[in-house]
C-alpha cells in the first residue's frame, strides 16, 4: 500500500507499484485535468507538482510517490475562482485547444522569475502545437 497526498488530501493506493502516476491520477482518482501527450517525457503535457516541483507524471512509477505531495491542475483554481495564471491565460490567449495548458500552468505556478529569458528557459520542456508560445510567455509575464 502506498500513501501520499493529492491536492492536499491523504490518499492511498493499493494497485501495481509500476502504474504510472498519470494513469493513477486519471483512472484511480478521476483527475483528468492532467493530459498525456507523448508518454516519453518530451512534451510536458503531463506535468504535475511533486513536493512543489514540476515533474512529468508519465515517467513516474506510483511506487516512488510514497509520502509525497502531489498537486494537479484541479487544485490551481476553479471555474468560479480562477488562479491569477488562469485569468492571465484567458486574457492573453495563452491557451487554444488547451491540451498543453494544464502542464504549462503547473510549471508556471512554480516559476520565480518574470524575465523573458528565464520564462523561456524554465518552460522549454513544454510543447504547444497551437499558440506559437509568445502568448504563453505573455500570459505568464503579465499575470
Amino acid at each position: 500500500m502506498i500513501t501520499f497526498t493529492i491536492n492536499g488530501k491523504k490518499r492511498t493506493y493499493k494497485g501495481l507499484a509500476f502504474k504510472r502516476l498519470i494513469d493513477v491520477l486519471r483512472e484511480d482518482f478521476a483527475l483528468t485535468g492532467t493530459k498525456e501527450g507523448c508518454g516519453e517525457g518530451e512534451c510536458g503535457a503531463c506535468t504535475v507538482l511533486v513536493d512543489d516541483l514540476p515533474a512529468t507524471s508519465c515517467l513516474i512509477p506510483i511506487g516512488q510517490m510514497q509520502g509525497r505531495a502531489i498537486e494537479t491542475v484541479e487544485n490551481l483554481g476553479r471555474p468560479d475562482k480562477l488562479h491569477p495564471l488562469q485569468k492571465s491565460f484567458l486574457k492573453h490567449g495563452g491557451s487554444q485547444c488547451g491540451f498543453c495548458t494544464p502542464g504549462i500552468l503547473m510549471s508556471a505556478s512554480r516559476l520565480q522569475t518574470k524575465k523573458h529569458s528565464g520564462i523561456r528557459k524554465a518552460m522549454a520542456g513544454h510543447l504547444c502545437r497551437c499558440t506559437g508560445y509568445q502568448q504563453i510567455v505573455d500570459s505568464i509575464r503579465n499575470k
Partner: protein
Amino acid sequence: MTVLGPRTGSEAVALYEKNPQAIPLAGGTDLMVAWNRGTLNHKTILDLSAVREWRAIAKTETGVLIGSLLPLSELQKDPVIFEKFPLLVQAASIVGAWQIQNRATLAGNIANASPAGDTFPPLVVYEAVVHTVSPHGPRSIPVREVFAGVKKTTLGPGELIASIELPFLKQNPDRQLFRKVGGRAAMTISKTAAAGLLWLKPDGAVKELRFALGSMAPTVRRLRAAEKFVKGKKLTPEIVSEALELLKKDVSPIDDWRSTIEYRLRVSQNLLEAFLLGHVPQR
C-alpha cells in the same frame, strides 16, 4: 513485476546480490521510457529512490561528493558546485528540461552511458571519480573508465554507484566552456556537446588544455592528441588550425537521422577553435 525498495545503501547492495537480475531505478527518466515501451515487463526493479544517504552532497578538503540519487536540479543549487564546477552546473541545466532535472540523477546519467550523456564532457574534464559499492566492497573508478561503449559500463554484477566525486582544481582555469548543440532548446539529444578548461602561462603559452566531446564517439572523448599538441605553445591561428585537424584523431562521429558526420565534425571544430582563440565569452 517485482519491485524491491531498499532504504539504506547496505540494504540495496544485499538485495541486489540476492537478485542479480534486478534493474536499478533512480529518477526513472531513462528507465520509465523503456517501461512505457514495454521492454521492462516482468523484470525485477531495485528502486533506490528511498536510500536517503545517497541523496546528500558532502564537501571534503579535496573536493565535493555528489550522492548518486541527488536530482540534477539540486546539484545546480549548491553554491560550492556552482562556483567550482560551473561546467557541470551548465550541463545539468540543459539535461531535458526543468521537469526532467527535478527527477534525473547524475548516477543515472552515467550508468545509462548514452553516447550523448550531456554531463559526461564536464565530468571528464573535471576528472571526476565514481564511487561504487558491491558485495565485493567499495571501488573508486575514474569516470572515463566507467564507459565501455554505447549504453555499456564497466560496472560489475551487483555494483551500484554511491556517489560521484569532483576533485577541486589546483588552480582556476583561465578559460572554460560548456556548449551543447541540439535540435531543440530542451528535451533534445545532443548532436555534439563540448567541455573545455584552459590554463595559460604568463607569456600566453598553454600550460594545460582539457577538452572533451560528447556524441562524437560511442563514449565521451578527451581530445588527447590536440591537448598534447598545444601544450607549451602559444595559440596562434596556425597552431589552432593544426589542433583542429588533430581533433579528428580522438573522435569517430556517425551519420544518423539527427545529424551528419560532416556537421558534427565542423561544429566540434568550430567550438574548439572559438575556445582556443579566446572568442568564447567568459563569465
